[in-house]
């Protein structure tokens, strides 16, 4: 998102600033001088980005070292690719975590990603502004709850000692085994994600839909098209770039499936069903003290995410979409 904006802004700013010296291209120094105030405003953000995102990247060097906290990073011995052995040799626990991650990620991509789009379409079709606002507020609210609260709510509603099961026990009704049931773990966390974030996810689609030229709807109506036609020929094509953009960004996160949410619920279902790469890195690294190996897995994860984003972007270009950034 961030990278898209300046590129789109540039042509208009050029138009606003009549070319100096009779249409000749400005030198970079001139452009720098012209944009000095904008750059100044951006400076704190850039500094923060470098300080808290790029400098820490250097820490990834421990993936190639036998790092121990009682040694400093420079003092820790180099071990080459030893830490990557768990990845290369396919350590069973690592493979289990990887498989779980991919399965959960795939399920969430298929089930979670389209929900906000559908929800946004529904909201967009509401005629009453008042009703729309109320519906939106209700849908946004869960987003502001932390995972601890969300997990606790689910536990108290559906847990083995939760609201329903306690009531069912008193009335001799069948019990629901949802929390703590490894077979239902993925459906459970997926529905939690939908419950918590689907409403929030609609914002960006609603914004995109608000840009639709209402004359287009009129044209469809004049041509005899109904609601479905309007949706198919006007609304969806308008928000398609946004959908593609978010899909690509989502692919970059394909190996991250909600550390907090899963970590909080690992106990009752056991690691076989619930260990994902993020929790594996935490359990191995910070808890287990294998910092190097954990960093290696984390680094692999980051690399795969980057490759996926770049590849998906390429594919988007092939289909004539703008993608996350324009072609270089």
């Amino acid at each position: 998102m961030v990278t898209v904006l300046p590129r789109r802004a540039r042509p208009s700013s050029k138009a606003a600033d009549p070319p100096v010296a009779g249409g000749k291209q400005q030198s970079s120094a001139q452009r720098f001088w012209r944009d000095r105030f904008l750059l100044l405003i951006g400076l704190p953000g850039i500094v923060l980005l470098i300080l808290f995102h790029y400098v820490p990247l250097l820490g990834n060097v421990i993936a190639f070292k036998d790092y121990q906290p009682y040694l400093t990073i420079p003092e820790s011995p180099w071990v080459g690719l030893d830490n990557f052995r768990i990845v290369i040799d396919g350590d069973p626990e690592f493979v289990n975590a990887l498989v779980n991650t991919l399965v959960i990620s795939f399920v969430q991509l298929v089930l979670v990603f389209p929900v906000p789009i559908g929800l946004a379409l529904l909201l967009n079709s509401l005629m009453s502004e008042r009703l729309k606002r109320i519906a939106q507020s209700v849908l946004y609210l869960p987003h502001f709850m932390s995972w601890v609260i969300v997990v606790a709510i689910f536990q108290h509603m559906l847990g083995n000692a939760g609201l329903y099961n306690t009531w069912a026990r008193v009335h001799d009704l069948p019990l629901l085994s949802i929390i703590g049931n490894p077979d239902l773990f993925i459906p459970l966390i997926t529905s939690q994600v939908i419950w918590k974030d689907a409403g929030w996810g609609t914002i960006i689609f609603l914004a995109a839909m608000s840009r639709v030229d209402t004359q287009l709807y009129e044209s469809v109506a004049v041509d005899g098209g109904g609601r479905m036609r309007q949706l198919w020929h006007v609304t969806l094509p308008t928000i398609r770039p946004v959908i593609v953009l978010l899909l690509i960004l989502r692919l970059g996160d394909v190996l991250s499936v909600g550390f907090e949410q899963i970590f909080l619920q690992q106990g009752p279902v056991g690691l076989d069903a619930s260990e994902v790469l993020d929790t594996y890195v935490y359990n191995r690294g910070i808890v287990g003290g294998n910092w190097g190996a954990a960093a290696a897995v984390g680094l692999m994860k980051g690399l795969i995410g980057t490759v996926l984003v770049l590849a998906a972007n390429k594919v988007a270009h092939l289909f004539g979409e703008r993608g996350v950034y324009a072609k270089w």
Partner: protein
Amino acid sequence: MRSTDVSRRHFLRMTGGAGLLAMTSGTVLAGCGGSSDPGSVKATADVTAPDYVPYGLVKPDLAATADGVMAGYFKYPRQLIDAYKDKPGAGAGDVSILTNMFNPAPPGVGSNAYWKALNDRIGANLDITMTPAADYVSKLSTVIAGGDLPDLMLIAAKLPNRAEMLTRLCADLTEFVSGKAIRDYPFLANLPTDSWLPAMYKGGIYALPISRSVIGTIMFSRQDLITARSLNPAPVSFAEFSEVARGLTDAKANKWAFGSPKGVITFIGNMLGVPNVWKKDGDSFVSELEVPERKEAVARTAELVKQGVFHPDAIGGKLQLRDLFGNGTIALNSDGYAAWDILADTYPVEVGAMAVPGFDGGKPVQREGTAIFALTAFKKADPDRIKQLLRICDWLAAPLGTSEYMFRRFGVEGTDYTWKGDVPERTGVGETQVKLPLEYVADAPHVLGPSTEQRVKAQRAYQEKIVPNLLANPAAALYSATSISKADELDKLINAAELDIVSGRKPIDSWDEAVANWRRRGGDQIRKELAG
């Protein structure tokens, strides 16, 4: 099953320890043992342990015994001694402390008059970072990796690579505490020798112990609920024990016997005589995990889970067990011996303790508790700074009978507590403010009470009953680097296997696979290192 080896505690008893103990009443011989206790004879042969100078200020109503029964006090002494005439930390400025806690955090120093009073009495600004105990190892690891150490930090018993962390990152306290030097700090000299051993590595002493008694873990029971249902409070076999558990369970009323399988596995293991972590077999060691009785304990626990006597969220759930025990949702809960007073003081219920019976009525074992809860290490600093910090810790470790002890436990008389007869009673202010986890920075050795005569006598009776069954860990005095660095990883592996079985997700035979995995991942290496 009782080990015939000379444990450290026995050793202490045979040598100076018992003599010293006889000299002074009111002191406790601390226990030893425990899976993650790296106290090392080999690694510490060339350093002199701090002298043990028991500080017997108040004569106990029930004296300690040589085999580990703690001294008991029926009331708080009213004639208090000021152990420190000056401010122990004068000139120390800001002292940052990282430690863990088990209760909700008290108000910060800005809105906590007790904390301010504490700083004033110590003469320094204690900047205490309090982390919930369950997350402490992660927090500490992160702080250490970040490289910005606090002045005083609690080193959790399960911290990976504990020895290296202490020897490389923390101050060497040897010259300040070894041998006679400790006498400068009379209340630290009051800590039993056993508890110092885990702080000694590679010819140095690198931390202060938070010492614990040999009594270890207790299966606490809701005596009132047991009586109300006319059940047997002291079962003498596994059959009777499970009968009590079934009797305490009433699913429709949301009443259960247990809230967590781990303690039950250990309890049943004790009935079956499972070794305390390791068993000596000739020159070699056998892990408790490898004996068939341990597997049976897991199987029996799985049976109990199947019978429905566990809280429905007991499997891997993060239940507030003490609260559930206090409000009667669960009736049996295994917890450290020190929880007795906490439970009885926090909840208006009758707390009892169930001594472990023999499985078929025979003789059971009772695991000796570890000698320490954790260690307090110091950031490297110049000798004057270290001495200041040691004096602060010494002040914090002042025992019963000193004004420092009363202040540390109850705060300021009149504001935080008032005397009701001979019992100090917390005020509302004291209830919220006097909750700093100072006992996890430095503490005097534990005693029973002071509390009501009835409670202290019940505690004594329990201890006298189980002390003859105490089983030491024969490897407690041996050093294994792997057992320390892999402690958490291996524990997790076994805990996960236990949960899989007791929850019914996997058959009991998966236990063998888990143990094989444990051997491969470090178990065999530990055995090799122990056999040396």
